[in-house]
């Protein structure tokens, strides 16, 4: 069964149509990349998938594991296994990192009928996972994303992804602002998901990321439509000649 199915998806912000008939199917273990010019609707697609308020789906359906998520709130979708790494992670002053991570993990565990995670064991798990991503201990003690550098915020997104073990991960420009080492670490993390039957949708502007994460499919989004799909060579093509040809087509 496909992991994520997006069918005839139309979405607006206010009266303004942003997504115009998106169709996309992602199977377990597949990595899909979406590329496209600024303002083409990539982040909007990620928000609509994650269930953010303020976006009106005017037509179409989104199914996760064969189940429509259209009636689910953002938190239900997350607990059902959807994860979004934000293009711009949000600062939460006063919300301690550890209690945030624990709250998120416990919400999923409770949904799955498991006990809340043991405090001490969890701290250890987080430290280990953070260590692998080059996240320092003192960052874990701070309020969520407050005072983090751009790259640190991105790593913190990936830490959350690692702890939440989603079925379907959407990464919105996680590569922007990452140094080469971080890019490699993050990519290793994403590639590891592939072996676990997880579906991945990476939104990126740069072919560079796709050197590390080899996509099975590449889609070009222009003006709210997928105007071309292909394999990884499509990314190289875009890198060389830009989006001109696609935006004209759109």
């Amino acid at each position, binding site marked *: 069964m496909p992991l994520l199915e997006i069918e005839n998806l139309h979405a607006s912000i206010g009266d303004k149509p942003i997504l115009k008939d998106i169709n996309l199917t992602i199977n377990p273990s597949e990595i899909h990349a979406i590329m496209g010019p600024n303002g083409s609707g990539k982040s909007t697609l990620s928000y609509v998938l994650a269930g953010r*308020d303020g976006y009106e789906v005017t037509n179409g359906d989104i199914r996760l594991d064969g189940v429509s998520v259209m009636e689910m709130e953002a938190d239900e979708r997350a607990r059902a296994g959807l994860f979004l790494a934000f293009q711009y992670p949000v600062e*939460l002053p006063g919300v301690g990192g550890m209690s945030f991570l624990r709250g998120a993990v416990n919400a999923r565990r409770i949904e799955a009928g498991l006990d809340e995670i043991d405090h001490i064991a969890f701290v250890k798990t987080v430290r280990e996972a953070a260590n692998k991503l080059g996240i320092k201990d003192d960052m874990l003690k701070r309020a969520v994303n407050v005072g983090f550098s751009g790259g640190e915020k991105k790593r913190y997104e990936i830490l959350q992804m690692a702890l939440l073990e989603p079925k379907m991960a959407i990464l919105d420009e996680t590569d922007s602002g990452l140094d080469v080492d971080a890019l490699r670490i993050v990519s290793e993390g994403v590639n590891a998901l592939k072996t676990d039957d997880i579906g991945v949708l990476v939104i990126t502007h740069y072919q560079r990321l796709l050197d590390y994460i080899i996509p099975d499919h590449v889609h070009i989004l222009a003006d709210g439509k997928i105007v071309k799909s292909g394999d990884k060579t499509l990314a190289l093509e875009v890198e060389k000649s830009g989006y001109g040809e696609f935006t004209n087509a759109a």
Partner: protein
Amino acid sequence: MPHDVVSFERLAADAASRYADNGWPGSKDEAWRFTNINAIRKTTFLPADTAITGSSSSENNFIHFINGIHQPVDNISFNDGVLCQKLSENAALSSALAAAIPQGHHVADFALAHASDGLAITIDQVVDNPLQLIFDYSGDGISSHAVVVFKLLPGAELTILEEHKGGGAGLSAPVMLFCLEEGAKLHHARRLIESDQRYHLGLNLVQQKSKSVYSGDMVMAGGDITRSETQVSLMEADAQSYLNAVYLGRDAQMRDVTSRIDHDAPDCQSFQRIHGVLDNQSKAVFQGKVKVKRYAQKTDGNQMSRTLILSRDAEANTKPELEIYADDVTCSHGATIGELDSDQLFYLMSRGIGCDEARQMLIEAFLVDVVDALDDPKREWLIEPIEHWIKTRVS
């Protein structure tokens, strides 16, 4: 500043005649413009029975008031730097109170007119254990008017944990004066957690000599109409005053945090942080006046008020007032009124955290911020009613 000797009896009699003339403030009274006290004005309160007194324990460092009445002080002996007397037997402090009462102050006049006596507490050293002032209220239609004057002698230090709790449709009108001599330090933590039908109109007067530090931290979570007014006089150089407050309102409750800081001497600092959360049709006002005299150069006066509105029907009013006559000062004020941030809410929910829990987390973060830097046990003690309010009310 020497003042005339005024006995407690005189003080009470003068207040009674002023109260008889002036009564309660009207809606035209500027200091009460946003605070509707019709419900209080319409009620005839019976002063609390002086025969029912609270108990006190020097060992456990607490003084217990029942409807504002404490145990006869002959029975309280605090050894470690805390001396308690009847206010009627300490002419110096009753005189100090007489001089400190702001002119035409309705609440002070009401309280003093009805108080049977007060407490005079003198602190002459660094007291390690917090002194607890526990105010328990009960009974419908009863008014309580505790009058307490603290004097901290030079270099003395004290932590007060003051709590107002209990039920009954009554009125609490505590009046307190804190005189801080040179270098004295007072930590004054307060929880106002009376039950829903009660009215609370409190007045705190703070007088600070040089290098003294007053730190007031208040959580206002209870009562139907609750007003806390604090007036600080920075009388000598290098004194510092911190006023932190958290208020929580719901249903048709009224919350009023009023302050006035007089910078009467150079090189003094005052910092005020007020964070409030309002739900349902509740209303709140923060009115803060900072007055800097001409010779109070190098004054640092800051005031920041932030209100989180959880419902469209809730209403927050802020009225900052800066009156500055000195030219070399740093004064600032700011006020924000807003809703929960939808980006923050979505971020939490996108991690699987339910909407109610996400809202609770954000509200708690917003409020706890005000008291987060405090040491325990004060910090825990103040956070407890905040958490309780959030857990029982936010959904």
